[in-house]
């Protein structure tokens, strides 16, 4: 079987005994900086296929849960996508684009899986649900603001998602575990990216420090909602399919605390917002996000793209 991307690697085909081909065919003669491959990883399409063929079928509870995580990632991807062509430097256009694409990938996987419980596709769920049917928490819908606000949001999100996905890799639900296993590596990089920027903005100029502090204060009210347990998460935690959000808090506080300390920043002392996103209670922002995201698909219901 030939896997895409591995066929040009001469190190695998070099035989012993014949020194001349060994020299010519191995090592540096193949060194290239533009050899591109798709790589092998779990794709949203794979999950959709498993769902369609009945290989993977979530319980109602798991589907509800996957919907939550999928909505979080989808709304964030929608927000981050706006930065592409507007970032502070071209390198950052590319970096934010990568993070947005990672999040969109996670969203598609979770939504494809969730849809399996109700015979719906990722697009049915993304484009044809109404605002109160979305299950994302409010942090994800917060506006991009300036770069510091976006970094503050990303910082909270990535440290939260990392702790969540890290634990979800051990979910008794094999599909959730598989999605999390792919996602946790990507989110680990998002943590690094946001932490690097927290340090630079906090320790850069007076202006950047002021903006960073402001950004964190704007986002921190929505931290609490991330760690609220409810009946669904309790049931799933009991069953070993998910983790109770409250159990992530300690690690989140410790690790974000370390970064903030290094940046000589305080954990913002701001009152927590009540949240409610998991039950369809959203901030004022989500309606606009959905209006824009869904407009075309809804203009042509049933159309294929």
């Amino acid at each position, binding site marked *: 079987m030939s896997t895409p991307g591995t066929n040009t690697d001469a190190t695998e085909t070099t035989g012993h005994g014949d020194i001349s081909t060994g020299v010519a065919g191995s090592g540096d003669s193949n060194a290239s900086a*533009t050899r*591109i491959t798709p790589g092998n990883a779990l794709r*949203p399409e794979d999950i959709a296929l498993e769902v369609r063929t009945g290989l993977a079928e979530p319980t109602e509870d798991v589907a509800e849960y996957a919907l939550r995580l999928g909505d979080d990632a*989808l709304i964030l*991807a*929608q927000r981050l*996508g*706006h930065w*592409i*062509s*507007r*970032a*502070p*430097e*071209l*390198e*950052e*256009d*590319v970096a934010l*684009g*990568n993070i*947005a*694409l990672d999040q*969109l*990938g996670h*969203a*598609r996987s979770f*939504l494809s899986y969730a849809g399996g419980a109700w015979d719906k596709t*990722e*697009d049915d769920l*993304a*484009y044809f649900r109404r605002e109160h049917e979305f299950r994302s928490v409010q942090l994800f819908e917060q506006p991009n603001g*300036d*770069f510091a606000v976006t970094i503050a949001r990303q910082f909270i999100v990535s440290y939260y998602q990392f702790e969540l996905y890290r634990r979800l890799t051990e979910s008794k639900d094999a599909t959730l575990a598989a999605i999390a296993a792919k996602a946790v590596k990507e989110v680990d990089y998002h943590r690094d990216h946001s932490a690097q920027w927290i*340090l*630079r*903005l906090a*320790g*850069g*100029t007076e*202006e*950047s420090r002021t*903006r960073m502090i402001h950004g964190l204060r704007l986002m921190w009210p929505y931290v609490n909602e991330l760690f609220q347990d409810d009946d669904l998460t309790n049931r799933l935690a009991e069953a070993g399919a998910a983790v109770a959000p409250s159990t992530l808090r300690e690690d989140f506080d410790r690790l974000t605390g370390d970064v903030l300390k290094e940046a000589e920043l305080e954990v913002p002392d701001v009152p927590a917002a009540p949240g409610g996103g998991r039950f369809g209670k959203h901030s004022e922002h989500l309606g606009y996000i959905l209006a*824009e*995201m869904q*407009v*075309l*698909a809804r203009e*042509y219901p049933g*159309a*294929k*793209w």
Partner: protein
Amino acid sequence: MAAQNLQSVPAELSPEEEAEAQAHFDRVMAEDSRIEPKDWMPAAYRKTLLRQISQHAHSEIIGMQPEANWISRAPSLKRKAILMAKVQDEAGHGLYLYSAAETLGQTRDKMMDDLIAGKARYSSIFNYPALTWADMGAIGWLVDGAAICNQVPLCRASYGPYGRAMVRICKEESFHQRQGFEILLELSNGTPEQKQMAQDAVNRWYAPALMMFGPPDDDSPNSKQSMAWNIKRFSNDELRSRFVGMMVEQVRVLGLTLPDDQVRFNEDTRKWEHGPLDWHEFQEVLAGRGPCNAQRLERRRAAHDDGAWVREAAAAYAAKQSKKTKEYAA
């Protein structure tokens, strides 16, 4: 100046040295070999390259905008991912090209400032609006398609850094045209309304795409010199004719038509011909009087200006850190 060791720096030469250097340059051209930044090059060659590469870079960057306009509204999550990846690629292309231009001694910042100040040119096609989702298809198929036609020969451009940037870009471009084609194909096979949307987009982007190859050969005074310098490999009309031939084939598969009833293959010249193009409009758009010129520049200016404090912060942080490291070492 930064990075002098990898950059081309004009040298003060005596007349004899210059003659020798010119002879070497000419030999490199005759052998179809490559000029690298540390080689001597004629001032006009340097100037031409710098202009062409920076314009090319600007086109990639401004070209992100019409498509970025649809990322938030892409009608399926798969298309959203594809479009995001594509627009992101264009940022990378701009970046590779600015880097190539930087080897000629110009900073990216200066080039960006020239662009924002309206002093630099970029491909006029990006001053047209992307009005419907089908434009994502037409841009990918026609605009990226024309760009690829232009760019593949540039992989062999005589200036090494330019050619290498083009190799990387062409590899990445390979999916851009296909995804555009697929968008149009899907629309064409969709509802009558979708098909109409696709045809309308092709109608609007066809002529501007043909004009991407530049003015007719008779009207393109610099082309000859660029070809002598092995920067350009084929003339504008030559590439345009080839492109038309490819589109004729592909539009049939799409089940759409080209908005040009004069397209035909000339058996005598063995070349594809097309109807007249509105070169007056081309010049107008190039001169800044297109539908979106002001909007595109303003958006680039806003991104650059809004990002200034971020760039400064990171630079200041780096300076503080390196100072700390030095103090620690002392």
